[in-house]
């Protein structure tokens, strides 16, 4: 039996404050339900318990917003890519804002395999510590950052690509987001002596591996 030709469609969306406290699995469900409400013909896997063919690029921790989320959905034939965006926008719940939808090559690796890094902007709130500049400098100067997470020790430093204080209350950072080597912004914030629960974190970009050298393929 030959697979019917399906549209693999990549959508870009924001996760806004209304959905800040929706976790990764719940976000997946919210997307699935949005696609259903939009009447888009979402494809399902075969087998005993069919799953929707829908992938999210990278999990976003609870409490974070994002203006850079990416998902791939496979749609059965008969739908124009141009229709996908408007239908999703019409069906979106408060908290999801769809910005773009475009077809991608069906044979590309999974989204998760393509994402290598993620960028975050942190609003430190008011008042931000006065010595932020110094804290950032000292952290960047450290050759390693031993951290404990879930009973394991690891070095956070190589996972941190960049860190800068863009304005007195605004921190920008870029972290590795490869499978098995994901840097967490809240760990960096703790290393900076900040309470991750008192600041606002927004994901601002997901950085993809260059198409030709697919270094992350397993």
């Amino acid at each position, binding site marked *: 039996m030959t697979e019917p030709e399906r549209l693999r469609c990549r959508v870009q969306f924001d996760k806004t404050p209304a959905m800040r406290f929706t*976790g990764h699995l*719940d976000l997946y469900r919210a997307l699935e*339900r*949005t696609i*259903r*409400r939009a009447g888009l013909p979402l494809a399902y896997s075969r087998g005993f*318990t*069919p799953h929707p063919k829908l992938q999210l690029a990278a999990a976003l921790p609870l409490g974070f917003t994002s203006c850079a989320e990416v998902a791939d959905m496979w749609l059965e034939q008969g739908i124009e890519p141009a229709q996908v965006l408007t239908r999703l926008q019409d069906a979106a719940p408060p908290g999801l804002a769809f910005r773009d939808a475009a077809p991608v090559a069906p044979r590309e690796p999974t989204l998760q395999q393509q994402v290598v890094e993620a960028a975050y902007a942190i609003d430190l709130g008011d008042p931000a510590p006065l010595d932020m500049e110094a804290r950032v400098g000292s952290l960047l100067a450290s050759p390693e950052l031993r951290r404990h997470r879930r009973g394991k020790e690891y070095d956070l430093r190589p996972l941190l690509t960049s860190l800068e204080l863009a304005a007195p209350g605004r921190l920008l950072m870029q972290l590795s987001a490869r499978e098995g080597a994901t840097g967490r912004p809240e760990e960096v914030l703790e290393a900076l002596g900040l309470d991750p629960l008192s600041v606002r974190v927004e994901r601002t970009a997901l950085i993809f591996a260059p198409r030709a050298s697919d270094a992350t393929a397993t």
Partner: protein
Amino acid sequence: MAPNSTPAQPPLTAADIELRLHRLLPRVQKPGRYTGGELNQVVKDWDATRLRAALVFPDVYDLGMSNLGIAILYDILNRQPDMLAERVYTPWPDMEAGLRAAGLPLYGLETKHPLHAFDLIGVSLPYETLYTNVLTVLDLGGVPLLAAERGQRDPLVIGGGHAAFNPEPMSDFIDAFVIGEGEEALLEIARAVLDWKASGGPRPALLRSLAELRGVYVPSLYRVTYAPDGTPDRIEASDPAARLPVLKRIVPRLPPPLTRFVVPYVDVTHNRIPVEIQRGCTRGCRFCQAGMITRPVRERPVAEIVDAIEQGLAHTGYEEVGLLSLSSSDYGEILELVRQVSARFAGRHLNINLPSLRIESFSVELMDLLHGEASRSGFTLAPEAATERMREIINKPVSTEQVLTTAREIYRRGWHSIKLYFMIGHPSETLEDVQAIADLSKAVLAEGRVLIGPRASVHAGVSTFIPKPHTPFQWVPCDTLESIRAKQSLLKRQLRGPGLKLSWTQPEETQLEAWLSRGDRRLGAVILEAWRRGAHFDAWQEHFNHAAWMQAFAATGIDPAFYTHRERPIDETLPWDVIDAGVRKSFLTEDYLWSLQGRTRLDCRERCFACGILPKFAALRREHPSEAWECPEVRSPARPVVAVSVEAP
């Protein structure tokens, strides 16, 4: 008595609350429970609305969001241009502590106004083990706990739901109860509140105007006196406006089903579109309170149900549908419904549930049709008791052979797992009847082994019977703790091994529900005392605090066994005699006596036993001649009446 811990109340505005929540929410579990803002929520302009109602489901959001009753009432109120309704649930203990520490009141999810700022608070009371949570909600919301202590500016607190058919234990805390169906009564109450606000009259005038509404019980307008032995002696109305008894409210015709449900962002208990296919039940199982208090049966047309599913899917995007009723097999056009639903929704990757099916092969055919090529997880049957003798006593006459035949059909058609619901503690139950639960479960498993081999499994869910008001068993004593423990340990010994699973309810939790179910007004003091001693989320095993309840009984000098372990004489005045559930007490009495003789009653679609529901609502039926309900037509006497001798009703 005064509430012991009224939160400090600086005049926090909705904006203040919202701001402080931002700091609190990241620190609690599942903060998505407390944000509101979900798809399909209705947000209205607070200042432009004359009546503001808070609808409370006094358990955690996850459960409350799955409650159809609250969803229906939310829709009804929000359709009124001059009214708004917001949702309130009991915060989980970590959030409760967080709110108290931050000096924040409990608030409506939609606009974050504090609970005490609403005009009307409607509390859902589906079961007794969330009574203490009602106190938590009121206390956190800055509302005086005791109805008697509420003043001119405090909200009106009303309650409704199945547990309200014995309103007495909660009568210290609830200003007025809606007995029965709330679709019309709630609007009438809301209008009465608006009229009262406009009139500027005193609070007692509002309560009196509520008492004049059909189906509304205002406990402060009644006086109960007790005999020397502690039983209720007289129940009297102390105000001319108060009806005695208060006849429950029903709607003459089921309104169109709700299809625009609020879709939570976080995972909740039931992520599905619930469609009530019929209300009421004709079966007459003697333990079942719902079957007695939701009469008469009213069915929804097939086309209305199918349309409701279609619209519900469009509005929510849910992947699951629940076709709900007390006994789905009895829905008049069940085959046609299942045919249409499966034809219409096949291939849409939906999970369509049809619970509460009779134990017969036809049920398996229905589920087969409904599930099509979809995967099959578990199939549930509810024999409720394992011997034919016991099933005759509880009036659920199914033969053991019928159970086994149905089980064979289930395994044969591709299900691997069968869940069997039983109860222990039925009247006159012996250890042999309990042993039979183990034997029947194993016999069902043996059928599965023969047909599909080691994949077959059986899960016996064994709860403990609690006598409920307005049922034929309202007079019977509860099983003792010792006896329940002995029965449960027998089952635990017997139901182990590959393919067998047993679950049961903690005897102490059963006891709590039993005290409250058939309690009287004096239990209000016990509930308050237990709550002060830390009782909350009593329906949650990890939070249930038995010691707090025992201490509360001791502190108030009330003997708990009085409510549970005493056979009540037929002529005793019962605390809930103030409520008329529509079924005549003489019918219940007769049915109780029949149970003692092991006599069963047929389904009332086979023969009318004159329970009283038709004449009781004769006036309502005359008022709505074009849309009046009738009891289901009694089938022609072609089917012989077996094993039952019937006296003239």
